[in-house]
């Protein structure tokens, strides 16, 4: 959604008033002077869109085109009137209506005196009306017409029209970015605040309000939403907001005001970052208004992030090493006491991998039902702990058998590093250690990826997933092989497979005398 904010100046540039009000009826908002040989006219623009035209034309006093009196052309009233209209002081700053009311016409004849009195009475009424309206409206605001209607900019005193235009265009861009979170707000926008400003307790903003920057003290009522892009919004106890308060940047201080809607604060995120950057640059560069945005940051900083990532990587690598050592120690114990059984299971893992995996998978699914069957069937209560113990032992034993098989397969390869690190040994101890090294490597790699921070978070996650899947596959396959071989006691099963070629060690292998795995 691209909203184009068409700004149109409502009144003459030089006569920009400060006493306009959002609900003004007779408030003077601008003026135009016309001087000719036989006529001198003043056109007053009113806040309600209407106008008053006062003319001394060819001997007649005309108000809005109707004859209200007469005067002597070139006489004292004519001279005094023309002198007033050509006085620069009359149009400087605010209070045009007041200065008109202060004017005392110089009228010597009867006709001039009567018309002069009529003008004084008219200007008194206009000043009274303007002052009354200004008192009830927001002071020191300037109004401009935008595509959605009329919007007041406050305060008007420090901004040129060019700055006003840029401010409104900027607000339009931000509303566009905010999208659905402020849907409809731009059509109902009544007041834009860009500097320190107060909405008094007896004032009503008929529509939504946006705070671009500065301190806005809200004591009165906003019949709409409030959008805080930057600056500090203070809700006084007397403040009333009929809609929501949406805070994208800046700060909202609730001193007891009443908000009928929801108060939503975007504390951090892409939108907050955009606001922090975009508005700050735009406002500072274009409007020369100091901006301070309080967006909570979750970043540690560059150095902190590096330290954090190194710590993460180191702890992960250490965990992998500890697991390797612990499982290797367990594996060595198993090899020492149950080598033949472990080798039989490992042979089945290698020779009949898919079948072992399938049986292992089925075995896992059957663990709980079998337990319940034992509980319900109750052959003897002793069966249950024996069964649970068997399952508990089979899982790590299966994993070690799988590691043994992987280690054998690795030893079969022509990996130079095996020789370089003197890991090429045709013994079950080395098979288990090498296999564990391979199975745990993805965990270590995943941990090492922490060094790259968040850049490869997906790859890191995938690596850990692969590591977990590999572990589960190894456990399942080893578990299945244990079932197939009855815990490694059924050697005949392994011999059914034809895997001699795979299993045979190269001639160059060194042997430490621990013996080959039996087939």
């Amino acid at each position, binding site marked *: 959604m691209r909203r184009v904010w068409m700004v149109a100046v409502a009144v003459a540039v030089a006569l920009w008033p400060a006493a306009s009000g959002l609900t003004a009826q007779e408030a003077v908002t601008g003026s135009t002077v016309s001087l000719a040989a036989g006529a001198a006219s003043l056109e007053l623009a009113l806040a309600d869109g209407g106008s008053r035209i006062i003319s001394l034309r060819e001997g007649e006093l005309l108000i809005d085109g109707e004859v209200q009196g007469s005067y002597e052309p070139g006489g004292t009233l004519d001279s005094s009137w023309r002198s007033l209209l050509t006085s620069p002081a009359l149009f400087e700053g605010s209070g045009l209506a007041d200065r008109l009311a202060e004017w005392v016409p110089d009228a010597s004849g009867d006709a001039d005196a009567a018309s002069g009195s009529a003008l004084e009475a008219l200007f008194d009424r206009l000043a009274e009306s303007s002052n009354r309206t200004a008192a009830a409206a927001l002071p020191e605001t300037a109004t401009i017409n935008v595509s959605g209607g009329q919007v007041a900019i406050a305060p008007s005193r420090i901004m040129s029209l060019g700055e006003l235009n840029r401010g409104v265009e900027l607000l339009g861009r931000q509303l566009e970015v905010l999208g659905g979170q402020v849907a409809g707000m731009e059509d109902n926008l009544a007041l834009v605040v860009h500097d320190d400003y107060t909405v008094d307790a007896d004032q009503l903003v008929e529509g939504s309000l946006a705070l671009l920057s500065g301190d806005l003290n809200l004591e009165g009522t906003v019949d709409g939403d409030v959008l805080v892009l930057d600056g500090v919004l203070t809700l006084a106890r007397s403040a009333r907001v009929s809609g929501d308060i949406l805070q994208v940047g800046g700060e909202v201080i609730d001193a007891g005001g009443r908000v009928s809607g929801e108060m939503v*604060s975007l504390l*951090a995120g892409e939108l907050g970052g955009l606001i922090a950057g975009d508005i700050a640059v735009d406002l500072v560069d274009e409007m020369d208004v100091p901006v301070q945005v309080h967006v909570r940051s979750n970043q540690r900083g560059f150095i902190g992030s590096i330290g954090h990532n190194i710590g993460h990587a180191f702890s992960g690598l250490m965990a992998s090493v500890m697991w390797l050592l612990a499982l290797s120690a367990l594996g060595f114990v198993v090899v020492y006491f149950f080598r033949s059984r472990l080798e039989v299971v490992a042979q089945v893992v290698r020779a009949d991998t898919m079948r072992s995996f399938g049986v292992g998978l089925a075995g896992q699914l059957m663990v709980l039902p079998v337990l319940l069957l034992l509980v319900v069937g109750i052959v003897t209560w002793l069966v249950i702990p024996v069964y649970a113990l068997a399952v508990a032992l089979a899982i790590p034993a299966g994993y070690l058998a799988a590691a043994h098989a992987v280690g054998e397969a690795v030893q079969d390869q022509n990996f130079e590093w095996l020789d370089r690190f003197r890991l090429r040994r045709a013994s079950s101890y080395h098979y288990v250690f090498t296999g564990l090294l391979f199975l745990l490597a993805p965990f270590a790699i995943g941990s090492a990826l922490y060094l790259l921070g968040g850049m490869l978070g997906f790859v890191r996650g995938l690596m850990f997933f692969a590591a977990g899947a590999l572990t589960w596959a190894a456990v399942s396959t080893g578990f299945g092989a244990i079932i197939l071989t009855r815990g490694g006691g059924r050697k005949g099963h392994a011999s059914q497979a034809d895997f001699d070629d795979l299993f045979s060690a190269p001639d160059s292998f060194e042997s430490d005398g621990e013996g080959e795995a039996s087939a």
Partner: protein
Amino acid sequence: MLRTTLAAAALLVAAAPVVAQETDWTEVRARRQADGVASLTIDVEYFAGELRVAAADAGLLYDTHLKYDAARMRPERKWSVDGEAARLVIGFEGIGDDGEIDFDLDMDEEDHGFLNLGLSPDVPTDLRMKVGAALSVVDLGGVPLTGLVYQTAASDTELAFGSVNPASMERLELKVGVAEFTATGLGNARFDELEFTGGLGDVRLDFTGEWSADASATIEMGLGSLTLVVPPDLGVRINKKGFLASLDAPGFTKVDGAWQSPGWESASHRLDIHLRAALGTIEVRQAS
């Protein structure tokens, strides 16, 4: 065969797409004043992350502080008012065609989502929560609850009533899947009826607190351990079903098929527990 398996595993790792997952961690705080609302119903669905619930500041109806990955999900808050009764629905929807949310469950990560929910200390609230895989700390002390339903699938939950419920609730319903669940200060909850359903895990229900009326509890437990902590001045009677679950209740005596605490007859307030457990251990301990 093993060569093929290893090759496939290596391929799986090597073929991992070198694509960094974009995240957009966003924090939003949303709160609403309590003016004009006499009762509130809150439905919360929170799937993954860290969940904390506590009393909000006085004058607020609710106060939510949410951190989420805007690249994956979009939070939803639905607000409706019917007279002086209001309803708030807090949930999420995924970004994408299927609307499913891809969660990051790594709670060790510095950047993980959370929801801090503050509840009105003034307005009676009916709270219903569905929690997926989360770390939950729910302290409902000082919150006037007229009802509570807490369901969780696989969360570690600490539910506490740190002080007496200013309101009272007819029913307190807790449904726990596979989780570690601890509830303390249940005597402060001022419920008439408690229903607890547990699947698998360690559960601790602490009934200490300031009891003001009699109550009943129905507890169904699947597999796992259940610990009941009861105050010494509360009369407790346990009617247990399920012969595979052992009951260890020191000091309790069996009367008419039910286990009664020593002070059952003279207790000013009593808790009648109907307990059904499939398999596991049940311990009853008196609070010191």
